[in-house]
Each structure stands twice: as C-alpha cells, then as structure tokens.
C-alpha cells in the first residue's frame, strides 16, 4: 500500500505491532508483503522463517535485494501452492481492502496458517464521516487516493470486519488500534486510522 515512507531501519508502526504478536522462530507467510520490511525484521530479530507474496514487480525486486523469500503471485489466485497448515502465522498488512475476493482470501489465510493477522484502514474514522458529510470522498494518510484511482475496493469499519470474522468462524485473539501510528484506546472505532486483528479458527 502507498503509505508514507518510514525512515530506514524503522518498521512502520502497524508492522512493528504485528511483529510483536509473532513468536520467535515462527513460520510466517506475508500476503502483499511489499518490499519485505516485516519479514526482513522478523528474520533478523526473531529468527523467523517466511515468505512474502507479491504481484508487483518492483516489490518483488525489493524483496530479492533485502534477502527476503518472495513468491510472485496474485493472492486472489488462492494459496493452494502453500499447502494447508504450513505456517504458524499468515499476515496481511494494509492489503485486504484492495482485494476483490476478500472473504475468500480470509478463508485461504486460515487454511494455510494457524493464526491470521490482518491490518486495514478503519473506514469508520470520524474524519471519513466528516468528509462525506461535506460531500467529499475521504482522502487520508492511510487512504491517499481519489475516488477514481483508489485500489481500495472493500473498505470496512471495525464492526464490519468483526462480523465477517464471525461469519467465517474465526475467533478474535487480539486487536489493536492505531491513529497515525500511535495506540488508541478511547473510542477507537471513531479515532483509529488503522485496525489490526489477530485471529484463529474458532
């Protein structure tokens, strides 16, 4: 996703939070891994082993240059190549809202890994509502696109996302909310710009 660049050597705040939820030595699959920043961090600091999945040429090249395993593939083509239960954790950071078959991708995630972690932009943020009340589609740091050029297809609020997890028989293990990279505890559904969920089969 086209988020603002993070200074070199520092992990994007949502990725840092995700990394905290991953045990040392875990086998990790990162869907929509961009240039492999999360996996590079997990390899170097936690001894994890993993693979990124990316469709974008420049991102794949970025992973190769970082020494991160990457498989060039459209995640919506299914994860059959990865085999059931091969991973401890399957991550999708800031990518799920850009998928066509969001429900299918979440199902596939829970088939190949024991635990899933998803981060996405919280569409329920007050600014979005304010923007729409003023007659404009929201353009924000997490969603820096105009309505006509956005890759985002399936935007959700936290409650929406939790409903879908419930429908898919996935149990929430943990959740965290960030506003501009800082943790939010008060009124997160209105104040958080990013939501992060950790879940597993119920």
């Amino acid at each position, binding site marked *: 996703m086209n988020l603002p660049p993070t200074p070199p050597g520092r992990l994007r705040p949502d990725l840092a939070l995700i990394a905290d939820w991953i045990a040392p030595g875990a*086998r990790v699959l990162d869907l929509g891994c961009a240039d492999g920043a999360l996996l590079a961090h997990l390899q170097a600091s936690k001894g994890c*082993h993993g*693979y990124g999945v990316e469709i974008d*040429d420049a991102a*794949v*090249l970025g*992973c*190769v*240059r970082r*020494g991160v*395993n*990457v*498989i*060039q*593939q459209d995640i919506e083509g299914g994860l059959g*190549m*990865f*085999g059931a239960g*091969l991973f401890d954790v399957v991550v999708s950071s800031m990518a799920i809202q850009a998928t066509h078959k969001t429900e299918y991708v979440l199902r596939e995630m829970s088939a190949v890994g024991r635990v899933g972690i998803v981060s996405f932009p919280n569409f329920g943020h007050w600014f979005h509502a304010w923007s729409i009340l003023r007659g404009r589609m929201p353009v924000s740091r997490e969603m820096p696109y105009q309505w006509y050029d956005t890759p985002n297809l399936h935007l959700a609020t936290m409650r929406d996302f939790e409903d879908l997890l419930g429908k898919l028989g996935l149990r929430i293990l943990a959740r965290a909310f960030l506003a501009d990279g800082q943790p939010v505890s008060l009124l997160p559904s209105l104040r958080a710009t990013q939501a992060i969920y950790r879940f597993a089969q119920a």
Partner: protein
Amino acid sequence: MSDAQQDSVGVVQAQRMRFSEPLALRSGASIADYELVYETYGKLNAQRSNAVLIAHALNASHHVAGRSAQDPDDIGWWDNMVGPGKPIDTNRFFVVGVNNLGSCFGSTGPMSINPATGLRYGPDFPVVTVEDWVDAQARLADALGIGRFAAVMGGSLGGMQALAWSHLYPQRVAHCVAIATTPKLSAQNIAFNEVARRAIITDPEFHGGRFYDHGVVPARGLHVARMIGHITYLSDDVMAERFGRMLRGRAGYAFSFDVEFEIESYLRYQAEKFASYFDANTYLLITRALDYFDPAQSHGGDLASALSVTQAGFLVISFSTDWRFSPARSREIVQALLRNGRDVTYAEVDAPHGHDAFLLDDAQYHALVRGYFERIATEVLA
C-alpha cells in the same frame, strides 16, 4: 550501470580436461577416457567460495561469455548475463561454463573416436541423462578444486541441471538458479522432440547415425528439427509482431510452394545455420535427455519428496509468454520447495518473447538475477 562497467570478459580460450576413470551412466552403460571442454571467467578466491557453474541448454556450449580466441565473432551465448559489472559479476565470481558429454562443441560425443573401436561413436555413443551430465560436471569441479558452488545456474535444460545438482549434490550447492525450466517434460514437449528426432532419423542421409562415414550430413532432418524447435521457443505474439503475414520481397502471392512469407524465410535461415554447426546424433541425445528428466519419478511422482534432500536457496524464474515451459511448470518446482520449507524466491517475468526470453536482456529479469547474486556475494565473500 554504465556501458563502460558492463564490459565483456574479453577473449577467452576454451580448456580441456581428460577423465580416465569410467563414469557410470544411468542407462547402466559407462564411459571411460572422456574429455570435457570448459571455459572459466573471473578468479577463484582463496576460500574457493565464489564459484558459479553455468549449465547450458540444447544447442549451447561451454562458451558462455566473451569472445572466442578462435573466432572473435563468436560471442558467448549468455554474454549479456555474465561479465564484469553484469548480473553475474565476474569481478566477484569465478564462473565455469562446461560443454556436456554427448554435445558437439568439443567434449566427448558421437563425433569423437570410440577408443574401443578406433571409429567415431556415432549411434554407439551411450544415451546420457541430465543426472549423468551433473555427475560429469561434479568431477570437473573436483579437478578445479571447487568443493561447493556459490550457485549453479541454468535456463531451460540448463535449469534442469541446476535442479539435479541441488538434489544429487545438496552439500555442494549454496544456491540453485533455475530459469524457464520444468520438473519434467509434458506429453506435448516429448511429442515435439519426437517429431524432431523422426525428421533426423528418417533423413536418407542419416545412415543409422553413421553419416560421418559417408561424408554427408542429414541436413534436411536437422532443418525440420530446428524449425519445429524454434517455433516452440517463440511466443505467438512475438512471431506476429516480428513477421505477421509479411511477404518476402513481393507485393502479392506467387501461387507456389517457394518461400512466400517472412516467417518461412526466417525459419529456413535458422534451420540452415543450425545444420551447419550442430551434430544430428547430438540432437537425438540431448532431446532424449530432456524427455527422461523427471526427478520425481523415483519418488512415486512426488517432487517434494525428491527435493527433500536439497539444502540450497533457490531462485526460480519463469516468463509469462513461455508456452514451452510455462510459468505453471515453474510453480510446480516452487510448490515442492515450499513443502520442504526451503528458501525460495519465485518471479514470473512479464516478457513477450516466449521461452527465448531467458537469453534476452529484460530489465526486470536481469535486475532480479543481479539482486540475487548481490545477496550471494554478501554471503560468500564476507
């Protein structure tokens, strides 16, 4: 990277090594007193950790890069990939190219004299497999003092050799780079090979493979073999773009069976060029080696099981328009490696050129190989 840095390895002299110890072949036969011709570029470092083996495909050879000392117009077949400042940088790596057993560019093959009879081997040259080639390459590596390769790399049939190295000599391969390849030929692939072989074998000038004794070459058979092969190397799109229905030097049809279309002219040109340098018996041998390659066969068809002994890191690359060894075939290899938890990177390069793309200079493709070898360099040259 400027042109000045993207220099050639320069003039190269092929070398030759003799092996007196018999090499046991998969067919049950063995071959003794054979020679392998090879070239090297760059310098083997003191730790002997920077060697890269390049395996060749059907009609290529040990002459991977640079200009041949014998013929300055003879530029190595992967000169855009291997050289100072190139993706496989000979300022850092010691690169070895070797001509395989049974080929016709100097290593022992059907044109060589069989020491047992004093005559050319011809059709008596034993059928060799990809695995046999790898065994022979391993002996050459021993002789060159290379215990472990930083990488073994190849495209197409060369990729099969890289893959075979990874499971036959797992401790001797740090990285395996397999490009535009497949874990086994499909029925369609074998069918194309069989058409090519029948064209050669049924040429009256083939003489059961003893055409050397008759002072002739089964050129017509080789022509058809090369034409059919060449069609499978190109994509429909690239043929349409380069030739389309363009006519050869005439505004309208001549209503004859002479060359009418540009594509016919091109195929005939390629065919004649090929027949002038390539040995017919070698063509049979190498297409058979392609047909037989199937590492999963001895594992009940389970490629993951066949590759379970591998230790290397893998870079697997396919090309979107390659219909000879399509991306789906590369994904089979990747899937088997994932099952084993191996380090593997897979890239599907969007290139219009079909199977031939692995020999061409595509920016994304070369950047991937360059990036991967830069990582290898940080490991082995630390």
